[in-house]
């Protein structure tokens, strides 16, 4: 199967490139293959850096308590801020420090690094922490220490997680590639050569839809090809030869019931660990009240500080920023964004639950599902946005087209997290529970309500948390777009932020990012954490 996919996708890739070289009527089309290679090289190098960094720092953080106490919370906060929000500011700062091409390239690398790093780092930390105490005790009984311990215990423990995390990171790298290679800030667009900027250019600057879709096709083919040729093969090899401690961390996290196991092949699980660590840390540190009141206090602080600006000159930046904020508009637009995310979320959840119901009954569906998932997940959805929007623009008014593309993009950003978790959990429902539901005649809605939903609830919760995380990044990218000389935007928090960025107002961008992060954290505290606690009270594990 894998071999066929490799063959087919390489043939398709070659055909697409030949087509673009000879038949595309676009001035830059002959360079498409070169651009693809540049992006491939860029992502590979940054991936290698992330991998080395993630393993070194991850091992340090997991083994050394003091280091862990500092590094893990810092990374946890960093990974919870939507990266696309702060990227423009970062870009400008870096370009100021390193003018010219070097600065731009460096900024792209940093964005790609932040897109890839967290899953690797938390994968390493998570898998080392998941080494059972008995194994550690056995190792110290037999006096296995130092390098021998690293080689025989740590390394085998992190390798499966490393492969899962790498697959994730690789896909995330391609997803964010377009956002990194092409940025508008303060009325200027910053681009570095690459396939991402090719797609953005052909969709949004020199509109040539044929070229844009061809570029997207090339990205998709590269991702499918590399996933198959590298990651799936590595994952297969590892799951064949190394049954690591029976329970493989990411799976343990998705897994609804304590005693169940899953094959090590599937990859996506890892991100749960990421969020999971974050949430469990929250739980031990501050109460909901503290976080909520800190957030509200700092909001009040901002207002007060802007009033005091005449007395304390340093506050004048705050007062100037706050003067530009229309509070009613901010609240209203935040609600719009939340509504947009919520509607798509409900839709994605519904689709996922139907799939879970089917998976809990049919082995054949499960097989088909994972093929669809592998392909669907490989689509770098951010890259899909510009061509999709530019195409819709031909048939409908701009705002409607943007709303539709935004809906679709949020859906793509959310669905894979939820559906993967929920379907996997439903597929690995313990055999006895499936038998119980057949034996006692649970069918249709009953099966969904009494068996599928409760048994996959931990997976629903983790999947939802991740989906919302993905949703926030998408919002920033999809509520506001410049096409040709026209600016289109939807009312929402994302477009407020983008507007501020387009005007080059860094302080305002930071303010909106602050609001956004605050909402993300509050949602985590008020909704997700409560759900997790409810699930855990029933003795289920997240």
């Amino acid at each position, binding site marked *: 199967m894998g071999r066929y996919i490799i063959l087919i996708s390489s043939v398709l890739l070659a055909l697409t490139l030949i087509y673009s070289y000879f038949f595309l009527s676009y001035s830059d089309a002959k360079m498409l293959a070169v651009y693809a290679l540049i992006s491939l090289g860029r992502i590979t190098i940054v991936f290698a850096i992330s991998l080395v960094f993630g393993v070194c720092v991850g091992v340090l953080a997991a083994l050394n308590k003091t280091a862990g106490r500092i590094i893990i919370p810092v990374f946890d906060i960093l990974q919870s801020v939507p990266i696309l929000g702060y990227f423009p500011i970062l870009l400008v700062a870096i370009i100021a420090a390193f003018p010219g091409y070097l600065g731009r390239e460096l900024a792209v690398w940093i964005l790609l690094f932040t897109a890839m790093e967290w899953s690797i780092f938390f994968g390493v930390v998570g898998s080392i922490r998941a080494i059972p105490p008995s194994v550690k005790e056995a190792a110290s009984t037999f006096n296995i220490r130092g390098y021998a311990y690293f080689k025989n215990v740590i390394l085998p423990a992190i390798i499966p997680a490393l492969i899962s995390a790498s697959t994730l990171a690789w896909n995330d790298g391609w997803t964010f590639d377009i956002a990194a290679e092409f940025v508008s800030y303060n009325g200027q667009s910053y681009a570095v050569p690459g396939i991402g900027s090719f797609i953005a250019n052909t969709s949004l600057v020199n509109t040539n839809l044929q070229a844009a879709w061809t570029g997207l096709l090339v990205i998709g083919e590269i991702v499918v090809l590399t996933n198959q040729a590298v990651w799936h093969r590595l994952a297969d090899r590892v799951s064949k030869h190394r049954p690591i401690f029976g329970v493989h961390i990411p799976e343990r996290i998705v897994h609804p019931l304590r005693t169940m196991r899953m094959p090590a092949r599937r990859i996506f699980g890892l991100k749960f660990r990421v969020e999971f660590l974050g949430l469990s840390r929250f739980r031990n540190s501050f109460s909901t009240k503290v976080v909520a009141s800190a957030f509200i206090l700092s909001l009040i602080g901002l207002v007060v500080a802007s009033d005091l600006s005449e007395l304390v000159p340093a506050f004048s930046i705050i007062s100037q920023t706050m003067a530009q904020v229309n509070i009613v508009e901010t609240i209203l637009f935040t609600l719009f964004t939340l509504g947009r995310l919520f509607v798509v979320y409900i839709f994605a959840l519904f689709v996922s639950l139907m799939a879970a119901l089917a998976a809990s009954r049919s082995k054949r569906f499960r097989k088909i599902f994972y093929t669809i998932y592998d392909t669907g997940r490989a689509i770098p959805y951010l890259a899909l946005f510009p061509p999709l929007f530019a195409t819709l623009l031909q048939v409908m008014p701009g705002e409607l087209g943007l709303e539709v593309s935004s809906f679709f993009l949020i859906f793509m950003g959310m669905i894979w997290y939820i559906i993967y978790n929920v379907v996997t959990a439903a597929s690995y429902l313990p055999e006895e529970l499936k038998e*119980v539901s057949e034996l*006692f*005649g649970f069918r249709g809605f*009953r099966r969904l309500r009494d068996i599928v939903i409760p048994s996959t609830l931990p997976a629903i919760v983790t999947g939802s948390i991740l989906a919302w995380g993905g949703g926030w990044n998408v919002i920033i990218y999809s509520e506001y777009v410049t096409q040709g000389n026209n600016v289109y935007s939807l009312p929402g928090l994302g477009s407020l932020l983008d507007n501020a960025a387009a005007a080059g107002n860094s302080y305002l961008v930071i303010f909106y990012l602050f609001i956004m992060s605050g909402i993300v954290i509050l949602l985590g505290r008020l909704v997700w954490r409560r759900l997790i606690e409810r699930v855990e*009270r029933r*003795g289920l594990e997240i």
Partner: protein
Amino acid sequence: MTVILEVQNVSKTYRNGAEVKALENVSFIVNYDEFLCIIGPSGCGKSTLLRIIAGLDRPDSGKVIFKGKEITSPTPKITMVFQSFALLPWKTALENVELPLVVNGYTKDEARERAMKYLKMVHLDGFENVYPHDLSGGMKQRVGLARALALHPEILLLDEPFSSLDELTAKDLRILLLKIWSDPTLPTNNFIMITHNVEEAVMMADRIIVMSPRPGRIVGELKVNVPRPRFEHLRDKEFFEAVDKLLEMLSISEYK
């Protein structure tokens, strides 16, 4: 009519990459009001056999006849107690017992009343609103028992019901199970139990069917003549004779 269930030439092979022959030409009958045990080493297909009787699995050839009709899918007339309890972790003890009743058409009130009665019968009154997670292994299996019996099945299947429990708890539950079986006021009087514990089989069963390891075949049958209640006769000569015979049949099946 004395036969309630008839297993006729049942064979089953699993094809999961490699072919595993689980059952080969298995035939036996179960009489009304009989306590039947099926004993065999692990991997002899006894669980598969039980699942075929429950209608959860279909044989490749042969069939199972229950009161003159072939079994092709699960029926509330035949229920099962699982080795791993298989309670729904997200439901309380009471809800676990109630739910199958509601699903099978009882009203909420009837289901509640019936569930309470059976929980009381397995001595779990006071634990109705506790989740499985907070129950001990023995208590979980009591819930499993109540759940299976509450539907008033005619045959109760027990898949190694005590092998996940410690010996003291298992002893208590065996006595409880025998009490339930011999209670004439209860509608369930046919028990088919799978075990790999020789003493347990002799203590519980009227008749014991012995199976060989893969592929599962019937290699012998033993009628237990130890008088009941058996726990008063655990030191009798007859009891040990039955145990020895059974061990002999099992060892033969091992070296064949």
